[in-house]
């Protein structure tokens, strides 16, 4: 498959009282077109910084993010970032939020497009609601729909579901897989939840503690719909957890 994203030797340090603090140390990998890659790592390892660089919000000290053969210098609507806290505008209705990304468009059917995607993520009937009237799961749906509206080629997800409760987290994963089956794009997911990564991703990149670098990359060879509880998936989970420095007993 064609290479969509090429991460080339990314390095990033932050200034601190004791001089520069290296956060990301030489991370390189590639993502094929349409592939779903999950990046897992211990908390505080620099995952989010890595994601910010990949999405173009933070410039690396060294290295480059190359998309379709072109180095990326700033964020654009070809790759939308969905973060843990979410960024659905609280002062706009669901419909207005969905129409936000279409502002440059000349088309007069912006509302139709917005409502179409509201329907896809299961928000039909809530187009006029304000975010404070929605549940956490519905907010996530709104955020996903707002991204889908601009037909992105890449979806960057930084712990998108970790603020949700376990049940809603599971639901949103299934929802995301359902949407992915309909609308194809390349996905990058940052998570600390190994099970979530196994449930969703084609490949899993395991990061080391800070300053982070790649420890291992695993293929996830299971066909969808996946059963995370099956033996092979559980074995993969234990292997990844061991890479992350969590012993088998801790994991059980």
């Amino acid at each position, binding site marked *: 498959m064609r290479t969509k994203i090429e991460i080339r030797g990314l390095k990033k340090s932050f200034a601190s009282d004791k001089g520069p603090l290296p956060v990301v140390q030489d991370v390189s990998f590639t993502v094929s077109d349409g592939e779903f890659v999950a990046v897992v790592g211990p908390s505080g390892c620099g995952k989010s910084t890595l994601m910010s660089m990949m*999405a173009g*919000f933070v410039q690396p000290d060294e290295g480059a993010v190359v998309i379709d053969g072109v180095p990326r210098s*700033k*964020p*654009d*609507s070809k*790759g*939308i*970032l969905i*973060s843990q*806290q*979410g*960024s659905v*505008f*609280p*002062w*706009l209705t669901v419909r*207005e939020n969905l129409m*936000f*990304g279409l*502002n*440059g468009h000349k088309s007069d059917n912006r509302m139709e497009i917005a409502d179409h995607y509201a329907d896809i993520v299961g928000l039909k009937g809530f187009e006029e609601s*304000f*975010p*404070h*009237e929605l549940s956490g799961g519905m907010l996530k749906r709104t955020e996903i729909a707002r991204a889908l509206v*601009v037909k992105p080629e890449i979806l960057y997800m930084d712990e998108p579901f970790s603020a949700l409760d376990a049940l809603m987290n599971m639901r949103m994963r299934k929802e995301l897989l359902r949407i992915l089956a309909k609308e194809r794009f390349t996905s990058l997911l940052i998570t600390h939840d190994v099970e979530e990564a196994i449930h969703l991703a084609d490949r899993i990149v395991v990061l080391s503690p800070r300053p982070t670098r790649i420890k291992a990359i695993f293929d996830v060879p299971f066909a969808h719909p996946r059963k995370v509880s099956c033996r092979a998936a559980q074995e993969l989970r234990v292997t990844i957890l061991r890479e992350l420095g969590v012993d088998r007993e801790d994991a059980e």
Partner: protein
Amino acid sequence: MDRINESLPALGLIATLIAAWWLAVFLTHTLVFPAPWDVVRGTWELVMNGTLWDHIGASLMRVGIGFGLALCFALPLGLWMGWVDGAYRTLNPLFQILRPISPIAWIPIAILWFGIGNTSPIYLIFISSVFPMIVQTTAGVHAIEKRFLRAAQNFGVSRRTLFKQVVIPAVLPQVLVGMRIGLGVAWLVVVAAEMIALRSGLGYMIMDSRNAGNRYDLVISGMIIIGLIGLSLDATMRLLEGIRWVRWRYAH
């Protein structure tokens, strides 16, 4: 019914104070200080000969113009200072020096510049209400959460859309707080300004009542009316918190 119950203690306190006032006047046989009933009679006198409405109208007009001008000035300036760091660094120190100067201290200069017509009090109201509104607007821009700006950047919207759909709605609740403070100060100041040199307004009415025959019943009547109008001005501003554009901020 609940609201009546909630305001019962406050009403009780006011009634007690009026009773104490009446008792004190009765027991001391004072000839100068009016009893509550005298104040009511004096107020009625002013209502009947129409001067009360003229004074109230004059004061409100001055506040309206001075406050309106301050708002037109503070809003764009506050947005600019919030958005452009250079503007903030240049103007903020100056405003922080000007802000604590009591509007009363400006009175001699206002009279020197503008004479004793309507312009002086309007200028004083402008000076007193413009700074709180600039400060609140600027603070509002600074307080916009980065995740919302990032999202706007991600969707690559125009500057116009960024301001119209993100910055201004995000700042509006803070602007409203600034307007409440500004209007409160403006009302304080108009009365003080009218006491100095004018032929109309509630402040003039108070001074004139004292100077022209020690009519302390009218002095107290003026004070109470100032308090009640101030209360209703603030209540009107609070009503604005319910409008669609800022409701998101208070709905939780």
